[in-house]
């Protein structure tokens, strides 16, 4: 075509692109370090499943059509990437394709590839038209109509249309006007035209156009294609479509630990860190580079938006905007960061960029992370920002102060006398562990503050104890030596208090040489199992539904389906999404119920939080409607008369919802253990 022109265009475009990308890379290098280069094979697994397989896009039933659309556009991009090498090469050298391995006229692969890219050009074209139709006609709530998104869609249209027109004009110039232009030919395989049905069809449509017009079209389509590609490339880095570049790396460097990287164990004794204001995330550069990459990668698809319990109930936290606000702030600070290594400090991260109401609305339920197609980790950065608010600025919601005081003094959120912790077990013949068990204890029951002090939750503890007794399990409790695991302190950013509680518990557990624990509280489960290892507490921890299911499996408990009426199971976030247990409670419920339990619309990994997580249980809920009442509505929507759950907090929230709705006669909330106990074979 024109080597000089194509060189100039490439040079200008690539130089700008490199500048933009290097600016971003330098920004990421200024952010907090984090090792995301471990376990390369598992990382490749993520890349293949979530990236190339687009599992989060096509894997969700509710979003299947949009997911499929994206799947085809994504693969279209991958396939057409190679096509661009051919197109740009042609700019330098007539018949450039012939020098590429496997893509010359004598290779069948070249013909197959021609067919595939031609097919995908049309597929992408249709998918983009579908995307535009969705945006303009269907208008799903999670999408925001904006110029940026539309510009990009039209550019993609431009890319495929110009290439189709280019091929069509080329075919006509060769076939009708005898031009000597390069195209694939082979005595057996046939010609390029035979393998490109759509471009050939378009050629047929414009076959009546004269030679001059066709030649002009050929030139125009070529240069328009080059222009669109090069402009498109430079629009990416500063738009939400940066994900075209960053999504695959973001998935590759995603969290391997389940469910996400644990909260950082801060060194709260470190005075230097404190003086420099480096506890938690107080400025944008305190985010890790991966969290920075998360910001650039968000495509504002809004899947996190309509899954979020706070959005559904009208609170100011919408994760899409949370991410966008942080990303815009990061962009504003890019120059300052790269010049000085720090942000300018003109805006307070919480206050100016993110409102406190937004930050504290999160229940840490992780639904957003389950549905994010590009592995953005929302919750860890929210907790880290809360850490700075609580530890550096003492700006936690006031209601938490009394709760903290109670935890400090008596190891439970109400501040009730620690000496009354084992009162619930009086007369139940449960031994209290005071010395390392001499082989006569199978498992230690971790009761948790709710099971120990809350009237309703004590019944769950008692039911679990009764079941273990029935099955002949030898178990003990730790009596008054047990303290709150610190979950609520940690989720609300009070790492100091969390560590105090957690260290004392680890010391007690290790001192008693406890190896195996069973707990009725998913929050305790999560701390003991996933967080205490940071403090050298390594235990085998079971949720009571897991443990009971095991007893049933071993034949030590027999259940008959005695429960009548429609029953549904509410997944606690910290059992399901945090600890990947969806089946044990369902299995027990199915065995205990006469009829098959029904599922709510939001179930399993897309379950709807009860509203208590993330220390929200201990804060006022003044904005919007109440999360627990919304969940109750969802349960009643499927006709549930019994809501079964496996968490004392979910129990409290849902029962409160029932009371608020005055529906005590119609709906009851029971723990799986209580249901199993009532369904035991007698």
């Amino acid at each position, binding site marked *: 075509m024109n080597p000089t022109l194509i060189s100039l265009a490439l040079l200008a475009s690539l130089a700008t692109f490199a500048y933009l990308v290097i600016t971003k890379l330098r920004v990421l290098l200024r952010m907090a370090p984090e090792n995301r280069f471990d376990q390369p094979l598992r990382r490749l697994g993520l890349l293949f499943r979530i990236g190339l397989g687009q599992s989060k896009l096509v894997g969700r039933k509710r979003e299947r059509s949009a997911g499929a659309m994206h799947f085809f556009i994504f693969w279209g991009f991958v396939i057409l990437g190679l096509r661009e090498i051919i197109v740009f090469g042609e700019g330098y050298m007539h018949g450039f394709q012939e020098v590429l391995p496997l893509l010359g006229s004598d290779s069948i692969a070249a013909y197959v590839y021609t067919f595939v890219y031609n097919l995908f050009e049309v597929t992408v074209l249709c998918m983009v038209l579908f995307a535009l139709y969705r945006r303009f006609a269907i208008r799903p709530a999670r999408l925001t109509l904006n110029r940026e998104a539309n510009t990009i869609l039209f550019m993609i249209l431009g890319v495929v249309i110009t290439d189709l027109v280019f091929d069509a004009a080329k075919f006509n110039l060769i076939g009708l006007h005898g031009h000597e232009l390069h195209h694939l030919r082979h005595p057996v395989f046939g010609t390029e035209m035979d393998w490109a049905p759509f471009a050939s069809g378009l050629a047929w449509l414009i076959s009546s156009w004269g030679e001059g017009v066709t030649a002009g079209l050929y030139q125009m389509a070529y240069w328009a294609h080059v222009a669109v590609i090069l402009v498109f490339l430079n629009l990416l880095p500063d738009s939400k479509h940066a994900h075209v570049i960053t999504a695959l790396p973001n998935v590759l460097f995603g969290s391997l630990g389940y469910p996400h990287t644990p909260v950082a164990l801060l060194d709260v004794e470190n005075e230097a860190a404190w003086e420099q204001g480096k506890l938690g995330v107080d400025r944008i550069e305190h985010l890790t580079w991966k969290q920075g990459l998360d910001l650039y990668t968000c495509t504002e698809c809004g899947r996190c938006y309509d899954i979020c319990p706070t959005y559904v109930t009208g609170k100011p936290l919408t994760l899409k905007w949370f991410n966008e606000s942080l990303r815009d702030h990061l962009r504003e600070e890019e120059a300052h960061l790269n010049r000085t290594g720090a942000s300018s400090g003109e805006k307070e991260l919480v206050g100016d960029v993110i409102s406190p109401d937004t930050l504290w609305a999160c229940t840490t339920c992780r639904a957003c992370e389950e549905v994010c197609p590009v592995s953005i980790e929302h919750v860890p950065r929210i907790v880290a920002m809360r850490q700075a608010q609580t530890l*550096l600025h003492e700006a936690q919601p006031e209601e938490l102060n009394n709760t903290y*005081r109670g935890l400090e003094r008596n190891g439970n959120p109400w501040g009730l006398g*620690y*000496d009354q912790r084992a009162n619930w077990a009086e007369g139940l013949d449960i031994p209290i562990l005071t010395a390392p068990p001499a082989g006569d204890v199978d498992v230690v029951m971790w009761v948790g503050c709710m099971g120990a002090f809350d009237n309703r939750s004590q019944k769950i503890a008692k039911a679990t104890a009764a079941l273990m007794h029935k099955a002949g399990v030898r178990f003990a409790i730790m009596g008054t030596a047990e303290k709150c695991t610190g979950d609520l302190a940690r989720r609300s950013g009070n790492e100091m208090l969390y560590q105090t509680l957690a260290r004392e518990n680890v010391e007690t557990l290790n001192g008693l040489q406890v190896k195996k624990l069973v707990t009725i509280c998913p929050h305790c489960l999560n701390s003991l199992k996933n967080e205490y290892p940071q403090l050298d507490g390594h235990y085998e921890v079971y949720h009571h539904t897991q443990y009971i299911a095991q007893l049933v499996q071993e034949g030590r408990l027999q259940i008959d389906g005695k429960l009548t009426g429609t029953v549904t199971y509410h997944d606690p976030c910290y059992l399901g999404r945090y600890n990947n247990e969806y089946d044990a409670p369902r299995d027990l419920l199915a065995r205990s119920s006469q009829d098959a339990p029904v599922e709510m619309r939001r179930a399993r990994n897309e379950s709807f939080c009860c509203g208590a997580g993330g220390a929200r249980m201990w804060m006022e809920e003044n904005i919007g409607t109440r999360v627990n009442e919304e969940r109750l509505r969802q349960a009643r929507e499927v006709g549930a008369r019994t809501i079964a759950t496996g968490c004392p907090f979910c129990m409290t929230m849902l029962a409160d919802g029932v009371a608020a709705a005055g529906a005590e006669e119609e709906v009851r909330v029971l723990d799986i253990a209580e249901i199993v106990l009532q369904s035991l074979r007698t």
Partner: protein
Amino acid sequence: MNILVPVKSVIDVELNIRVRDGRVVEDGMNYVLNKWDENAVEAALVLKESQGGEVTVVTVGPDRSGEALRKTLAMGADKAVHVNDPATEGSDAHGFAKILAKVAARGAYDLIITGKQAQDTDMGGTGPLLAAMLDLPLVAGVIAIEPQGAGKLGIRRLGQFGTEVIELALPALITASDSLNEPRLASLRGIMQAKKKPMEVLKVADLGLSAGDVGSAGARIQVVEYLPPPARSAGKKFEGDEAETTAQVMNLLTNEAKIFA
């Protein structure tokens, strides 16, 4: 404005108090800062923040009382005095006031704030006795404090006929009610800084007192014995329809509890 805040470390009243052989069992007990003293510290800190000056906290008690002092330093008090002397054991309110008066005399304080009573003894005597010994005006059970220029404070307290509005000339002594404020938590910042703050440990001799002046030796009243708190009797359950249960409740209230007599 320099403020002295006498505080006390008391048994956490959330715990079951057990009595054996006429003595309170200390084993397994936790000790915390008396809640009204927490209000006093908070009030002092608020005044310091608007008026400047220094907040000094003082306590009388064994080693464990030092923790209560650390907490007040972490809340934001500037320095602490710990009178830690076995001789003080068994002091009555009079004895505590005597010691505190000596501590107060060592500095120039514009204001002394203390809790209106201690959660353990519920005596409420130390503050007033201290005011008497120092010959200071006293307002007890304060619910609001308003700085009013040099040497004066606007004070509110709940009196018999409603809220009393008082103009108090300094120096003076006030005791804090729990509706005075919402005490702050000891923050991480506070805990960090508290480590570097001065805590003076004194014996009674350092205050010019002899062992016979204080403790059980100097006490004017003696607690002969502690009796365990009465066990809570079981509640009564009323059954029947609304009219019946209402009648039963009214009957008991009138004839047994005699509340309408």
